[in-house]
């Protein structure tokens, strides 16, 4: 189908965008890359009265590396993350995730901020933000506020963003020495939504796992950290046996629901298989 009727606004600044969001409140939706929102409009799952197109706001796109973090602007396209030497160097987890995000034509248009603000439970970038301990920078009428990734994702397509706020960037702390990461996902076809996926980040310094953050996606209503699994790895040697032994702990971390293709038991099984494969990548 075609998109329902709406009115379109194209603000030139964050201030203009915020004024529009404030004026139209719940009737407005922010249009970033549109790679999920436009299908939702065409399916008539969403029918906002006003679309606020932020694509022409200067300064919302781009990747900046500082002494302490990597800042990714909300309008940064997936393709730009995929091709960025700074991302490959400082956030290899994000670089590893990018080829899994849909297809090249979608990645040319889809944005980092759009993916995080939509909070699709099967999306890759929210899980990366969670695993890497990112902080989201949100603009509102009264100025900016910062929200840790762990507090940002609230549920199925739900975030801590208010209707009058705009996600402008995320700050990823530069990984500390000895920290490493791995990423994997299972999908029915390349580029499809994940049946299950995970992003792993932590230290393997001195041949022991430490401070592991294991973020699953596609197995719940939001990206979620597997705390029991991480605790079972803590301080243990980086050998295959450690990983195998910890996998049973995922029963306590995950309670996936059945979806169109898999039963709950199958999803939990797939999550364990994938967690084994991905975490083994950190074993030298």
């Amino acid at each position, binding site marked *: 189908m075609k998109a329902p009727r709406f*009115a379109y606004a194209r603000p030139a600044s964050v201030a203009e965008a915020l004024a529009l969001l404030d004026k139209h409140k719940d009737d407005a939706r922010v249009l970033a890359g549109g790679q999920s929102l436009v299908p939702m409009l065409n399916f008539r799952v969403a029918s906002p009265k006003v679309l*606020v*197109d932020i694509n022409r706001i200067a300064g919302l796109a781009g990747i900046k590396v500082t002494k302490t973090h990597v800042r990714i602007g909300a309008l940064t396209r997936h393709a730009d993350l995929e091709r960025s030497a700074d991302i490959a160097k400082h956030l290899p987890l994000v670089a590893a995730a990018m080829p899994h995000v849909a*297809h*090249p*034509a979608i990645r040319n248009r889809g944005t980092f901020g759009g993916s995080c603000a939509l909070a699709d439970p099967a999306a890759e970038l929210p899980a990366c933000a969670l695993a890497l301990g990112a902080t989201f920078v949100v603009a509102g009428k009264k100025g900016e506020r910062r929200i840790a990734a762990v507090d940002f994702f609230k549920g199925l397509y739900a975030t801590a963003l208010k209707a009058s706020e705009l996600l402008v960037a995320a700050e990823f702390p530069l990984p500390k020495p000895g920290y490493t990461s791995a990423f994997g996902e299972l999908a029915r*076809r390349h580029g499809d939504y994940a049946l299950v996926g995970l992003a792993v980040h932590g230290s393997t310094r001195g041949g022991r796992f430490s401070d592991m953050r294991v973020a699953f996606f596609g197995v719940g209503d939001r990206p979620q950290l597997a705390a029991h699994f991480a605790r079972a790895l803590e301080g243990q040697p980086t050998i295959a046996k450690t990983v195998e032994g910890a996998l049973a702990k995922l029963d306590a971390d995950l309670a996936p629901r059945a979806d169109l293709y898999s039963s709950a038991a199958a999803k939990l099984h797939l999550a364990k298989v994938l967690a084994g494969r991905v975490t083994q990548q950190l074993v030298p």
Partner: protein
Amino acid sequence: MNTAAETIEISLTVNGEKVKRAVPVRLNLADFLRIELELTGTHVGCEHGVCGACTVRVDGEIVRGCLMFAAQADGCTVDTVEGLTDSREIEELQSAFVLTNALQCGFCTPGILMAAQALLRDLPDPSREQIREYLSGNYCRCTGYQAIVDAIEAVAKARRARGHR
């Protein structure tokens, strides 16, 4: 424009020609090209970004024509399969598609040609696996893809042999 409106006047360059139109803001780029400009080479399949039949180039990069509003292409340079045919940019790919029987009904072909040309720009020496992966966002319900991969592989080899991308 910082007030919301239901129609918009847009100016853009399509296949090298400047065009100006007043359009409803809900008109997607693929429909704009087909209905307003009568460039019907860009096909509309699924209308939710899955099939790839509407693939066009906006400012040099391939996008889904059904997931972008014409309003958003205001000021942009858009290239369609007609433009790439006239400029002969995809002549070799088109010949190879004919030679290897890489199309049957042809519905997906314009989108696949747009994607294949982008693939060969980014990866001049792709493996068959990389070709398949790149085209995973373009559905073909006739060929089984084998001949499409053959055609693209043949063009990549020919271009490399000439030292040309």
